[in-house]
């Protein structure tokens, strides 16, 4: 685990952040639930994965030149057949710097954000919020210092203004709180293990349903190169 992490951090240092497939690998190794996925080098590989996993699938651009995927329409959900997936593959593979196309199983649920940052006064802290694309609009977040204790989790969940979303708002299925708690505690441990090597982490969205809490996308921003202390 540590060796794999060091390798990934080393190869990501140049661009300053860790590509999504590598993030998923790191988080999965830390025990977090991630979607089944494949970094496909060809449309045929993407289709083979989708057929084994089941449609619809999600396809995402993977390029060290693209930090914000949505800005290049780099995330496409609901791809229902080989034709749609192949067409999307061709477009995403043509994006500048592409190193492949990430194909993922479709997970549905309440969209949350789970993140971390290295705070000057308090060290590593973990953020939980109502997430997805509206995260900065609603600003409905709670923050705890890592490591989180098991007892911190219920207080964090209850600290969200939108907590009713978790309880099955308007007939939706309530989210699996145990799975979400396990994800938060696992993430807190992962963050602590990174020490001061990261600046911030977004797991956004984390998708929560009655069974799972899944990190559906993640990005790790690395701390500025060792030796040059950041302000």
């Amino acid at each position, binding site marked *: 685990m540590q060796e794999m992490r060091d390798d990934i951090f080393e190869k990501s240092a140049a661009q300053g952040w860790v590509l999504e497939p590598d993030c998923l690998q790191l988080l999965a190794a830390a025990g977090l639930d991630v979607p089944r996925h494949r970094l496909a080098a060809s449309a045929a590989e993407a289709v083979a994965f989708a057929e084994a996993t089941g449609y619809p699938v999600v396809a995402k651009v993977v390029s060290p030149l693209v930090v914000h995927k949505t800005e290049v329409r780099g995330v496409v959900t609901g791809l229902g057949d080989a034709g749609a997936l192949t067409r999307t593959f061709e477009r995403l593979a043509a994006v500048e710097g592409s190193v492949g196309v990430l194909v993922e199983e479709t997970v549905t649920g309440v969209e949350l*954000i789970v993140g971390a940052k290295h705070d000057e*006064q308090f060290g590593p802290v973990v*953020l939980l919020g109502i997430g997805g694309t509206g995260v900065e609009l609603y600003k409905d977040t709670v923050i705890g210092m890592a490591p989180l204790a098991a007892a911190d989790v219920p207080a964090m969940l209850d600290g969200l203004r939108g907590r009713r979303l978790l309880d099955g708002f308007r007939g939706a299925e309530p989210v699996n709180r145990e799975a979400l708690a396990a994800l938060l505690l696992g993430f807190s441990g992962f963050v602590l293990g990174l020490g001061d090597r990261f600046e911030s982490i977004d797991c956004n969205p984390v998708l929560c349903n009655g069974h799972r809490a899944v990190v559906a996308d993640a990005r790790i921003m690395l701390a500025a190169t060792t030796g040059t202390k950041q302000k």
Partner: protein
Amino acid sequence: MDIASLLHPKKMAVIGVSRSNDLHPANVIFVKNQLRYPVQVFPVNPKGGELLGERIYRSVGEIEGPVDLALVAVRAEQVEAVLEDCIAAGVGGAVVISGGFAESGEAGLQERIVRRARQANFPFIGPNCLGIYSPGLLDTFFLPSERMVRPEAGNVALVSQSGGFLVDMLVKFAEEGVGLRLGVSIGNKALIRETDFLRHLAEDPATAVIAFYVEGFGSGEGREFVLAARDCGKPVVILKAGTTPGGSRAVASHTASLAGDYAVFSGVMAQHGVVEARDEYEFIAFCEALSCYHGAPSGGLRLGIVSGSGGHGALAVDACSRQGLEVPVFDETTRAAIRARLSPSIQGIAGLGNPIDLTGSALEEDFVAAVEAMGALDGIDALLVLLLPYLPGISADLSARLSRLARRIGKPLFAYVPHIEKFRMLMEGFELNNVPVSSSIDGAVRMARAIARCRPCRK
């Protein structure tokens, strides 16, 4: 670093007194301690001479016997040498009130004195501070005695980065009848910081509440502080200045953008059971409430409210709803049981749904009966009495009676009494019997909220 000798000195040197300027900070401090406090004070100035008939010592080393505390009020550039003298003379520690250090660009000078003090294991408070006000023991504030408003001695310890805020709080504490154990202004907190006081006060049997005004923590200092606060076993109250998000620089991640300095501060305080006040009103209310009750009985806080005015009851419920406190409505059986205990004259007109409105016709015994009945309910954790002193049916003894009753019941009681000088005895009947009382309805509800927010504490 041991700060005990700073807080309970027997001998104090006041370094930097002037022979000609009575208003020099050192002179003010010398005089007030000489006249009003048990600490033995010695004026120091290298030029020697006399001050008000007392010998001025040329250096701290000339003073006989162990000096526990040196009050340093010399120009910034002389502080280094003065501290060197203190270290050589075996002084216990210092309060450096002099300004002219990190706050005005002289970070290097400040760093030098810190390094030297640390090396010599010599604790000092400041620089750029007022230092220590300890009722009945010591006062290093350079404000003339007649200008100060002094709260009574009590169990709340206040540690403030700002001297001005601390002085203001002493005034408010005196007004609100909150007792003070210790007030310390730590200024630039170059060496002795919040966490040092937190650890010391956690072990001080006379301190029940530890309250802080902070402007910011240094690198990693916040983590150390909250961990100490979590483990200290006493209620910790904090007010932070600078909570508005500053000019946000472009950040590459949502987390970095959402978890601004203040959001992190606030979240982490709550996580560790530190009661964060959002403004000075909350700060005072929280200190007062927690000085009487040390944390919630368990989990939430369901309030039973009684008043002699429907309007006051309704406003209190609104305040509870704004502040997230529950006011459960009583069922028919409960109402009937309470009604049966009231005077016949109000049985037909009193509102009993919670809040209980005893109406302006209520008698003293009706308040007692209502508090007793609500106090016995399992679904009620704390009681709020809104007392209008103008009601013809109540006496000036009511507040003391209700206070005793609440202690017997064993549930926290909070009170609202308008601050009117001629009804002062009603207020004091609560205050002096350990029931927090506020002059506003919102204030009384705020005090209840402090209890709800504080994690349960050791006695």
